[in-house]
């Protein structure tokens, strides 16, 4: 990909400095955002120390250096959040620090990076390379940077990706006073591993993907430390009950398929996993349809319906074992990119429901505001989400991009 110097000139701010020979063709760019956040929890928390108001601020910077006509580049993307009440949520992470070399149909990467696999909107079952940064968001889409060596090649018969993952990242969890959080806190000081090498186990992943006309298909295999912890009840040094995360060794084969037919999207993803001597299957799938330019206006209205399934049935390790998802997405297609997403996930066994509303728009050229409200309804004590049932919240984020 070529990027032209003029882009750099136009955005003089982002061009801190220019390189001279021998890197005369190199480009350096720094971008990022600062994002203050305010959270309101209407209900009093049932854990001591939980507050009803919380404020925090996040900062993400992306520094990119490209040379060799864009065939070689280094990206450094640090992230940090400072949180008023939750010490675990005050955290920093290197989202990316990678060197990439592209040679025709081949791409080599070494360093820390983020990779996404999958097609569905709510449950991301086959997405396994990166660990979830759960203190950032409950939706599982915020991830921690993953150290890797990766090779990818595009051939006539598809795309092949290979990953060596030499270091494991633990999932982040809210601290005792954080929200939304488990009522019994997760004790990360007692984290256990299935591998004797603990977090230094060498994990391996590979994926084949291709497009067959309207069909996009991916098949993947992963072997190594599972990203989803198994919780073991235990006690901390003070004798208080805690949840101890265990990261077992797993083998997982997965498939993700999307068919795109006119306005309809049909999606399926699922995996077979061998973990702690057991084999199991999880799958999710559904449809997405968009009504474009409704009532002869610029507005689009999309509907999403998905189903999430776990072959273990209702269980205390996975909240989404027999769940239905219904969503509405409204996009105004205006200058401000105004959009609204209403989504509900209902457990068909317990009728527990999680409903979320996300609204977002741009203000001016550099401000982006997002408002999120999430409520948990009708959650029985037996449901894994019960801990969250007192943690309904409204969250406002105002990002200033630079």
């Amino acid at each position, binding site marked *: *990909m*070529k*990027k*032209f110097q*003029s*882009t750099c000139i*136009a*955005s003089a701010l982002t061009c801190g400095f220019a390189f001279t020979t021998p890197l005369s063709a190199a480009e350096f760019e720094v*971008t990022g*955002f600062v994002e203050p956040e305010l959270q309101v929890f209407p209900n009093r928390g049932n854990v001591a120390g939980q507050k009803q108001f919380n404020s925090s601020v996040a900062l993400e910077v992306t520094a*990119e250096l*490209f040379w060799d*006509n*864009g065939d070689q*580049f280094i990206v450094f993307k640090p992230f940090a959040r400072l949180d008023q009440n939750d010490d675990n949520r005050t955290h920093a992470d290197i989202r990316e620090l990678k060197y*990439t070399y*592209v040679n*025709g*149909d081949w*791409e080599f990467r070494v360093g820390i990076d*983020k*990779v*996404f696999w*999958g*097609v569905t909107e709510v449950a991301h079952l086959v997405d396994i390379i990166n660990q979830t940064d759960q203190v950032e968001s409950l939706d599982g*889409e915020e991830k921690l940077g993953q150290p890797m060596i990766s090779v*990818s090649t*595009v051939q006539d018969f598809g*795309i092949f990706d290979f990953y060596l993952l030499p270091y494991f990242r633990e999932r982040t969890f809210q601290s005792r006073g954080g929200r939304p959080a488990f009522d019994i806190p997760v004790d990360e000081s007692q984290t256990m591993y299935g591998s004797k090498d603990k977090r230094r186990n060498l994990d391996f992943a590979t994926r084949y*993907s291709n*497009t067959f006309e309207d069909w*996009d298909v991916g098949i993947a295999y992963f072997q190594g430390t599972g990203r989803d912890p198994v919780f073991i009840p235990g006690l901390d040094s003070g004798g208080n009950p805690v949840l101890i995360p265990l990261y077992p060794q797993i083998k997982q084969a997965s498939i993700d398929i*999307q068919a*795109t037919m*006119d*306005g*309809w*999207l049909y999606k399926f993803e699922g995996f077979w996993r061998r973990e702690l001597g057991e084999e199991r299957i999880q799958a999710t799938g559904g449809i997405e349809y*968009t009504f*474009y*330019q409704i009532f*002869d206006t*610029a507005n*689009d209205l999309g509907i999403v319906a998905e189903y999430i399934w776990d072959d273990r049935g209702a269980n205390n390790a996975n909240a989404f074992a027999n769940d239905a998802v219904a969503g509405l997405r409204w996009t105004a*297609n*205006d*200058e*401000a*990119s105004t959009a609204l997403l209403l989504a509900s996930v209902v457990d068909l066994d317990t009728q527990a429901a999680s409903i979320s509303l996300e609204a977002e728009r*741009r203000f*001016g*050229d*550099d401000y*982006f505001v997002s408002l999120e409200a999430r409520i948990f309804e009708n959650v029985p004590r037996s449901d894994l989400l019960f801990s969250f049932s007192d943690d309904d919240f409204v969250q406002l984020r105002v*990002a200033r*991009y*630079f």
Partner: protein
Amino acid sequence: MTRFSIPDANPIVRLTVNLKEENQPMRKNALNLHNLALAWIIAAMLVIVPVGFSTAIAEELAGLDTLPGADDPAARGLAIAKETERRDLGFGNTSANMRMILTNAYGETSERELRNLVLEITEENEGDWSLIVFDKPRDVDGTALLSYAHILDPDDQWMYLPAVKRVKRISSVNKSGPFMGSEFAFEDFSSQEVGKYSYNWLRDEACGERMCHVTERAPLYEYSGYTRQIAWTDTTDYQPRKIEYYDRKDQLLKTLTLTDYRLYEGKYWRAHDLFMENHQTGKNTRLVWSDFVFQAGLTESDFTTNALKRAR
């Protein structure tokens, strides 16, 4: 703006056709003389570079291409579109920067910046490939759109969302919706293949300092947002100068004015200023192209979902 890909004939065939139709009207004597002189020079060079002859002369004589008469407006309209397409044949691949200035009914403006890479696909019945990377607004920095254009079927499109590192295959049937909140729809500046429309020549008339063929064209693809368009194509370079868009109710919706044409590689015209005015909302969008590079060294591997992820 206009990119075309279907080859209509090889240069030799075109040369014969051109010579055969010499006695038709609609040509310029000055150009003729110029061609004659050039033909002699080329003939002289023939001894040294025999291969260059047929191609070069064919290209020079192309300006004399003649059209079916006014008694067959459909054929004449189609021939105009084909000639426009032929003039762009062989551009190979391009990269360019685009700035969009959106003005709402109150005169408030906002801007978008993006880069556009195009790969010419010469295969019959297929459109070009393109990769659009957004720079501004900054919250969409790095978002990229990969399109394999088809003539009558919906394009194949993938969107890359950098925040979640996700490549999403998206439905492309909404080509007529606002592109990035602007007055342009994706179909307004995507690959303008001849086969996307049926044509009907209306008249020839002055358009500014030039003469233009005025042609009505009706989109043949199912999901177009328009019933018809009226295009003013100049009679010298065969480039669109103005296009009127009629909505699904056949009301005049928008007018596009294309100016600041510049010539690349001695044969490819590109408009650098495209002004789209929406008559129904009072909004307008100016689209300014810059930094056109032809033969930018792009290949198919620059238009894969892998390339989409590292596009910048």
